[in-house]
């Protein structure tokens, strides 16, 4: 589904040489997998997610999504890839403020000029428990509700890969748990859809099928279906 090969990313420094953030990362995300990326602050986990999702240009290396090398695609083609195959859930600012929850959910389909029925949109909102709030604008929704609308968008559009950057970072425990259940549900829907989630919440990471622990821009450990204690120990070892 997503293949990353020898990926590097450096950011320009105020003085001197560029600062390397990712140092030759290679990984694969197969269909239907829920992958969590954890690591200490500055380990490069968010940068990895953005490079994997073609939101940020890598310095070198290759990212293939559904077999297409994103490095060779123009901005228009990347936009098409995003609206047809990718979904995003950010830590905050997920929704267009001037659109209602219903309009935000239908937005990717509208941009792709795909038909999406009102019933599909309402069903997605109902799945995240926000059927009653369909006509609300983001400013009238709590942070957790906004996150759930972003997930409803993912449910309605059914992208092949969902990228989530700290989706529970600004939420309370209960709202965070709801969001994680919904993300896990996407990966386990049996429709070969993958979820890549960056998080600093180790309990949240333990909900994933596979956990990558990053340290200084490289993969330090890889855990399969770990318990929270395993993730904690691995991250402690990386710090």
């Amino acid at each position: 589904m997503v293949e990353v090969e020898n990926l590097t990313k450096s950011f320009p420094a105020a003085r001197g040489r560029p600062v390397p953030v990712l140092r030759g990362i290679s990984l694969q995300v197969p269909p239907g997998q829920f992958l969590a990326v954890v690591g200490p602050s500055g380990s490069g986990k968010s940068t990895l997610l953005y490079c994997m999702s073609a939101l940020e240009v890598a310095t070198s290396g290759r990212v293939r999504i559904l077999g297409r090398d994103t490095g060779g695609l123009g901005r228009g083609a990347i936009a098409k890839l995003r609206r047809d195959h990718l979904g995003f859930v950010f830590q905050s600012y997920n929704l267009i403020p001037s659109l209602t929850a219903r309009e935000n959910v239908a937005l990717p389909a509208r941009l792709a000029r795909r038909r999406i029925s009102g019933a599909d949109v309402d069903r997605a909102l109902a799945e995240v428990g926000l059927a009653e709030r369909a006509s609300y604008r983001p400013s009238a929704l709590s942070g957790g509700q906004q996150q759930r609308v972003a997930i409803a968008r993912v449910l309605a559009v059914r992208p092949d890969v969902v990228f989530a950057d700290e989706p529970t970072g600004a939420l309370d425990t209960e709202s965070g748990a709801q969001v994680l259940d919904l993300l896990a549900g996407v990966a386990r829907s049996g429709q070969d859809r993958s979820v890549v989630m960056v998080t600093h919440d180790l309990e949240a990471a333990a909900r994933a099928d596979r956990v990558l622990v990053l340290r200084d821009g490289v993969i330090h450990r890889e855990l399969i279906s770990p318990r929270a204690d395993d993730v904690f120990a691995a991250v402690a070892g990386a710090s």
Partner: protein
Amino acid sequence: MLRLIFSDLVANARVWLGALLIAAATATVGAIVAGDIETAFAAGGNEALALYGISGTVAAFTVITALVVVGAVTNLTVTLQQRGYALWQLVGLRPTLVRLVVTAQLLVVSIVGSVLGCLLALPLLKPLFRYAFTGSPELSALSPRLTPAGAVPVILFVTVVITLGGFRAAGRAAHTPPIQSLREVEPPDRRMTVARWMGGLVTLALVAAIVATLPATGLDTMAVPLMLLSPLLAGVLAAFGPLFLARLVRVWTSLVPATASAAWFLARNSTAANAARSTATISPLMVAVALAGGLYAANGAVGAPSGALSTGSVVLLVGGPLLLAVLGAVATVFMSSRRREREFALITAAGGTPALVLTAAAAEAVIYVATALLLGLSAVAATTVIGAWAAGVWTVAGALPSLTIATLALVLLLAATVLPTIVALRHEVPRVLAPE
């Protein structure tokens, strides 16, 4: 506190630069009018009487325009920084102190801007005076002057209008709930306030008073009161804007079906939902359209051919206020471009192409100008009807200048929306969407 005042001015330079620009532009226009009055005072005799009459009309146009433009820009200046004010309270700043800091910032910007504006007027005064009075050898022979005695009232006017205009907004800033800093903040909808009701009703009463005097006014002197009607009516519409503006935008933009264009859909929602932002842009544009159209409609109503208004006269009468109104609209778009960047990033993340984002930005400019044209033309049409009632002449002379100003404004507004959008599209989405 001084440190907070100045560091915040620098941190939000884009917003404050817009306010500074409008303070300077208002002062420049005001200083040129003040220069004319000073010149009249020094000249004495018939020349003084003629100059006082002309300057009075220009001053009236300038005051109406300044009140609408400066009010809109000042309100937007504060509204765009609501989140910052919420953060200030979160770190322990008392609401009264927040209000004090915001008022102090408005004071600093208005004084600096108005002094700069007066200085800018100095080299412009003589050539503009000569150009405007080319057709009058007696007046063009005068030596225009602007001394501190003329400049100080202008600086005071600009400072008072900006500071008082922002006073209520500063109060709103002081009462921004700190929790807003943690949530997605949307500028609050503009609502009717007591000041708006009073301003609108007083202006409406002024319009009624002028209209009542028209039947007893001779054709040779009717043009001046008639040409005041259109900008005054625009002022009334601007004051009552919160009652109907968002609805008006939604109604007329629905002529293009939502399914026809995603860019139009995004632009119309953005314009209608962000009432504070939209009103700040549409109101000055509406005044610009009403000024230009009203001048020609009044002239046509008293039977003068359109050609009777020389370019010099038009520049003299409405040039400054027009410039101020159009600059005001452009400044408001520039000031709120930071907020737009986030929306563009979200559209990009949702799969919008750069072309779609650019088209949506351009569509927003079109919606602003078309709405302003619709409202401005209604003020011009009212002037035409009143003129026909009072003078017995029907004219369509106001239509073409209104359209010309709207076209010019559209070009400038397209530049003000599209250019920052091109720059915004170069920013990587994660940086724009990162929590501040």
